[in-house]
C-alpha cells in the first residue's frame, strides 16, 4: 500500500504542475475593445441614410459620467482644461467625421445628425440595455447650442438599436443577438443621432415646459443611427494615451465603412 500512497503523492504533485493555467500575459492595450452598432433599416434606406447625411453638429465638450470623479475635483478640472482630454477627444472625432465628407455646422437646427460624446468612468459593472441608457445622468445630455429644457422622467428612443445582454446566444458574445458591455473600465461613447428627431424632441420639451403629466408614449422618438464604444482607452483618472485612443478611433471608423457622405 505504501507504493500506492507514493503514486498518489506523485499524481498530486503532477496536478500542481499542470493546473496553473490562464497565465496568458496581456498588456493593457490588448484589452481595449472597439465596438460599433448601426441601425440596419436606416443604412438600407434610399431616401435618407448615412451617405445622404451631409451636415453635423458636435457637442462642445465631452460629457463625463463617473461614480468616483467629483465635479470640480482635480481630475475633473484636468479633463476639461483647454487641450485636455475632453478637447482632444472632441477634436479627433470631429476630424474623423469631416474626413468622411460631412460638414460641421453650428446649430442642431441645420444639422442632419448630432454627435454626442460621453466618457464613462464607472467602478461597477453595468450592462447597457438600450441607447440613451445614460440619459438623465449629469453629463449625458448635450447642449448643441440649443436652449435645453430638461424634463426628468421618460426618454423615448427608437428601438432600432436593440441590443440586449444575452451572451449565450452566439458562439462569441458579440455575434448575433446581443452584446454585454461592461463599464468597469473607461469608455468613450460616440453617438450619431438623427438631427430632425432630436429637434422634434427638443421642440416637444419646449412646448411642454409646464406640463408635468406627459405620457411616455407621447414623447417624440430620438433615432440613434450609430454608436461607437471605445472601451478601455482612458486611464482611471480620465487622462488618455494618444496612441491607444487614436488606434481605437481608427478602428471604429474602419469597421463602419458605411459612414461617409456622398453629398459633398
Amino acid at each position, binding site marked *: 500500500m505504501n507504493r500506492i500512497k507514493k*503514486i498518489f503523492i506523485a*499524481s498530486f504533485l503532477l496536478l500542481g504542475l499542470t493546473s496553473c*493555467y490562464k497565465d496568458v500575459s496581456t498588456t493593457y492595450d490588448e484589452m481595449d475593445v472597439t465596438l460599433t452598432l448601426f441601425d*440596419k433599416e436606416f443604412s438600407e434606406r434610399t431616401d435618407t441614410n448615412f451617405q445622404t447625411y451631409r451636415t453635423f453638429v458636435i457637442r462642445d465638450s465631452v460629457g463625463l459620467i463617473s461614480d468616483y470623479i467629483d465635479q470640480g475635483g482635480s481630475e475633473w478640472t484636468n479633463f476639461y482644461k483647454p487641450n485636455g482630454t475632453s478637447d482632444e477627444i472632441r477634436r479627433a472625432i470631429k476630424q474623423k467625421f469631416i474626413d468622411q465628407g460631412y460638414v460641421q455646422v453650428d446649430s442642431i437646427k441645420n444639422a442632419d445628425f448630432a454627435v454626442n460624446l460621453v466618457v464613462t468612468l464607472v467602478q461597477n459593472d453595468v450592462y447597457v440595455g438600450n441607447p440613451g441608457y445614460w440619459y438623465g445622468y449629469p453629463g449625458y445630455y448635450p447642449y448643441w447650442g440649443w436652449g435645453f429644457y430638461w424634463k426628468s422622467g421618460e426618454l423615448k428612443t427608437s428601438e432600432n438599436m436593440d441590443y440586449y445582454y444575452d451572451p449565450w446566444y452566439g458562439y462569441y458574445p458579440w455575434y448575433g443577438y446581443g452584446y454585454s458591455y461592461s463599464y468597469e473600465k473607461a469608455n468613450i461613447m460616440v453617438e450619431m443621432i438623427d438631427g430632425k428627431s432630436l429637434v422634434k424632441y427638443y421642440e416637444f420639451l419646449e412646448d411642454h415646459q409646464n406640463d408635468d403629466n406627459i405620457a411616455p408614449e407621447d414623447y417624440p422618438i430620438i433615432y440613434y443611427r450609430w454608436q461607437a464604444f471605445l472601451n478601455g482607452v482612458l486611464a482611471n483618472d480620465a487622462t488618455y494615451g494618444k496612441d491607444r485612443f487614436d488606434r481605437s478611433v481608427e478602428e471604429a471608423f*474602419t469597421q463602419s465603412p458605411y459612414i461617409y457622405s456622398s453629398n459633398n
Partner: protein
Amino acid sequence: MKKIYLIISIIVISFGAYSQDDVYVNKPDGFISFGFAPTWGVGNLGDFVSNGSYRGFFFEGKKFISNNVAVGGYLGWSGFYEVKDRGTFNFEDDPRLKSSGAITGNLSNYYYNFPILVSFSYYPKPEFWIKPFVALNTGTVYNKLESYIGTVGLVSETWQFQVAPELGVFIPFGKNAEGGIHIAGRYNYITYQKYRFNGVQYMQLNVGISWLL
C-alpha cells in the same frame, strides 16, 4: 497528427511482440497509472483553439473482473487556450434585430475539462509481459468554455457526457518488473451542443507510469 501515428506504431509494434517473444508473467490483479496527457482539438474545438495543449494529466486504476476484462476509474484534466491576433469581427446578420455592427479586439479562447470516467478494458493476453489493450471510457465531464474579446466575454460551465475509445499498452521496465510505461491514445467526444459546438472532440496521448497490482 504525427503524434497519433507514433502512438499507433508503438501499440501495433507491441501487439506484434506476441509472436516474437514468449515471456509470460503472472497475470496482475489490475493497474494504477498516472501521467501527462497532451491533447489537441479536432473539429469545432480545433477551430476554437488551434494549437495543441500540453496541459493535461490523468490518473486511473483498473481491476480485472474476468480473464481479459478490466474495469476501472479514470480522472483527467485538460486545458486548452489560444490568444489570437487583434482582429475585427462583424456581427452575424440576425433578421430579428434592427441593429448590426462590428467589434475589434484581441480574442482569447479557453477550454478546460475534468472527466470522471468508468473504463472497460480488454487485454487479449494479460499474462504476457507487454500488455496491450483496447478500452472504452465513458462517464461525466466538467466542461468549461471561455471566450473573451478584451475583457468582455462569455463563460459556459456545464457537466456533460463523455465517451473515449482508447488503444494502449503497458510496457514493463523489465520483463518481471511491476512498474512500467503506460502509453495510450484516445479519441474523446463530449456531448456539448452550445454556440457553434456540435460536440467537443479532441485527441489525447496519455504517457505515464503504471504499476501492476
